[in-house]
């Protein structure tokens, strides 16, 4: 009953939020260009976090160079839409440019994935960091195509409401994609890879193929978001398009919300965003807001290792400690034992990380 109530409340809140987002541009002053711009940027970072979560959360491959796809997508759109590229001086219309950006990024991600997805743990993370720096330098070197370090300028045609709706619909689609994927055989295979890669392989899952597939998908999503951003920002050079902070934000937001969950990246990014808005608008924190933000986030990660989704499920580090300590008191002991038991049974019932529970064909083998 508890779970059902939580689920209903969550769904109602989500529906309200979506309705609010759809009507936002019609709310006069509250839906002005400034608000729409801010929310569009937030939606784009939610989209990036969702795509990072596909490899980092579902598959367990922590990607430290994810922003490279954003940069490649942005540059593809920039090269096609700007007249400053010597090799492609024609100015393409937006939609074909975005489609090409998505497919080109997917292609590069596929090739890179074939190499890096064979590595594991920190080796993969560091290789991706390397590819991030590598592609930023490639952009500088391929001068006639990318206009070197000078950068590309796109003709500014800014229609905020239109842009907002395009981003909103795309991100809603991503949320659905992530939710749906989690329930498919492919999604279950990814989780199996995260939990026990060798085991998954022994059970007949083509792990490399699945890993490269999810990596390509993740790259394609971020590449498209990057292309959309380039069009909106109207200017890009290697240092603006390839920014480490985009990766850090995606990782931080996902960890904060809850790694490997559907709602985690959304909740985490929104929390991060609201925190920033509350901090930097304080005039007294004009020069120190980033320090305060860093400290607060450090504290949240220390005390909520499973993210905000963990908080909803009642997994809080200091509460666990409090429980350990209080277990010395006789009167409390039984209650705590009960709590621990229920936590174990909870995790058995609803543990999302259990590939066996997810995959119908494995039921017989494990029972």
């Amino acid at each position, binding site marked *: 009953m508890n779970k059902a109530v939580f689920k209903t409340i969550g769904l109602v809140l989500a529906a309200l939020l979506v309705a609010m987002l759809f009507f936002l541009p019609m709310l006069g002053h509250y839906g002005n260009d*400034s608000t729409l*711009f801010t929310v569009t940027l937030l939606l784009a970072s939610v989209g990036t976090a969702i795509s990072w979560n596909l490899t980092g959360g579902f598959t367990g491959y922590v990607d430290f160079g994810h922003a490279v796809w954003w940069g490649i997508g942005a540059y593809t759109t920039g090269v096609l839409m700007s007249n400053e590229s010597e090799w492609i001086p024609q100015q393409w219309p937006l939609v074909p440019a975005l489609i090409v950006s998505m497919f080109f990024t997917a292609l590069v991600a596929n090739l890179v994935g074939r190499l890096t997805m064979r590595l594991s743990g920190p080796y993969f993370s560091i290789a991706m960091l390397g590819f991030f720096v590598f592609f930023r*330098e490639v952009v*500088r070197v391929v001068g006639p195509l990318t206009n070197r370090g000078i950068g590309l*300028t796109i*003709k500014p045609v800014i229609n905020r409401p239109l842009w907002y709706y395009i981003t909103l619909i795309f991100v809603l689609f991503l949320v659905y994609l992530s939710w749906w994927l989690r329930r498919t055989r492919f999604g279950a295979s990814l989780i199996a890879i995260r939990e026990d890669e060798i085991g998954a392989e022994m059970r007949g899952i083509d792990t490399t193929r699945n890993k490269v597939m999810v990596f390509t998908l993740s790259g394609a999503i971020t590449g498209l978001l990057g292309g959309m951003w380039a069009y909106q*920002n109207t200017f890009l*050079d290697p240092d603006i398009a390839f*920014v480490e902070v985009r990766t850090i934000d995606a990782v931080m937001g996902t960890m904060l919300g809850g790694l490997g969950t559907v709602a985690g990246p959304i909740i985490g990014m929104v929390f991060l965003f609201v925190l920033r808005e509350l901090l930097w608008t304080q005039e007294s924190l004009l020069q120190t807001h980033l320090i305060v933000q860093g400290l607060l986030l450090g504290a949240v990660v220390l005390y909520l290792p499973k993210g905000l989704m963990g908080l909803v499920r*009642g997994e809080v580090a200091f509460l666990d400690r409090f429980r350990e300590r209080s277990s010395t008191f006789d009167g409390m002991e039984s209650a705590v034992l009960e709590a621990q038991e229920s936590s174990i049974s909870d995790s058995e019932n609803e543990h999302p990380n259990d590939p066996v529970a997810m995959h119908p064909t494995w039921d017989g083998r494990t029972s």
Partner: protein
Amino acid sequence: MRKRLRLALALFMAFGLVAAACGSDATDVVDSAGEAVADAAESAQDTVEDVAEDAADVATDDGAEDDAMAEEGADTIVGTIKIGAALSETGKFSVEGKDSRQGYDTWAKWVNEEYGGIQLPDGRYEVEIIYYDDESDADTAANLVQRLIDEDGVEFLLGPYSSGLTTGASAISEAADVIMVEGNGTSDSMFERDFQNLFLVATVASDYTKSGIEAFAAKGAKTAVVAYEDTSFPTAVANGAIKHLEDNGIEVLAVETYPKDPTDLSPIISKFRELEPDIFIGGGHYIDAVLFTNAADDVGFAPDGMLITVGPSNPKLIDELGDSVEGVVGPTQWEPTMAYSGEWLGSAQDFATRYESYWGEAPVYQAASAAASGLALHIAIEQAGTTDTAAVRDALRAMNVDTFYGPIGFDDRGVNTSKPMGTVQVQDGAINVVAPDGAAIADFSYPRGN
């Protein structure tokens, strides 16, 4: 037990969030209430003034009396002009961001405290600058400019620091038809977009080396080599330099580029040594000046002239390298010693003295460029006699004035082409302006060491 704890914690969090939200809401309400009262007062005042004006129009016989009344009214503060700026308080441009903010504030403080407010037909207006921190990030800068326009209702904008941030931010102000005057984003490509609302008081990047190269040519230099960092601003400077070299009949023997954040530039210098050029032109950022000078010393490369894009105008370089930088030449937007002055803020030296009294440190040219941006806007508003965007834009286009920063006059792109870029040379451990003639305080020494 566990459920209760969970519930208590969730309630606590929810309460915290609501309290935080209410806190800001409450201030907003108070703010908007205050604004409403102020608006009402203002409109009441406007009505009174309109009536007074009408009366004055009717009573044409008492002309002298009217003038006296108008003058009396003109000296009182009747309102505020809101100006917005996104600047880098944090991140990689935080130092230059602070210099720019102090520059803007020097102008604003002077306008409000000494000048008496911007003069419009109906009286004087104080200026208020609203600042936000763009974290040296392009997205944030663009977002904040949109916020300044929509939320804070600013009438004009002053620019952020760096070309990268200004390019995106100015696209927003252009779309919203708000004028942005800036002094610290100088890449040429920004001004090739046919924008109507972007104005640069500083010299554009491609002209950084113009007066320096002309000085070299006048002294008889015939050959040159060029090396630059492969990023936006140094590339624009170097492309301009190559053009100016060719225009002045100096042959370019070689052009080399190097990636961002170099650690050793001696391979390039070794190559240049074999070519034996008369002059060397190079640079990107401050550290490049140090690397080039050290490499030239190590390799034994001693051309007659050395022009380094960023560094020679900074006293720190002399402290760091001593005699090695003797005779090195560099461009500068502005120096306190330049022989410029105007009816606002006095001479270049007056500005430096005032700046130092406000902030306890000498102004760098980024600060002067920022102050000059505010001043150009100020003069345009006064000449237009209104804060109407179209009228102020026309006034900016028609502007031709002398200031502490040098002459200000914009071309069709919005670039101040009236002010030449200054050139400094390190002479006996001092930084002296040697070109152009209008600003020079010392003779240009060529070849180096003569």
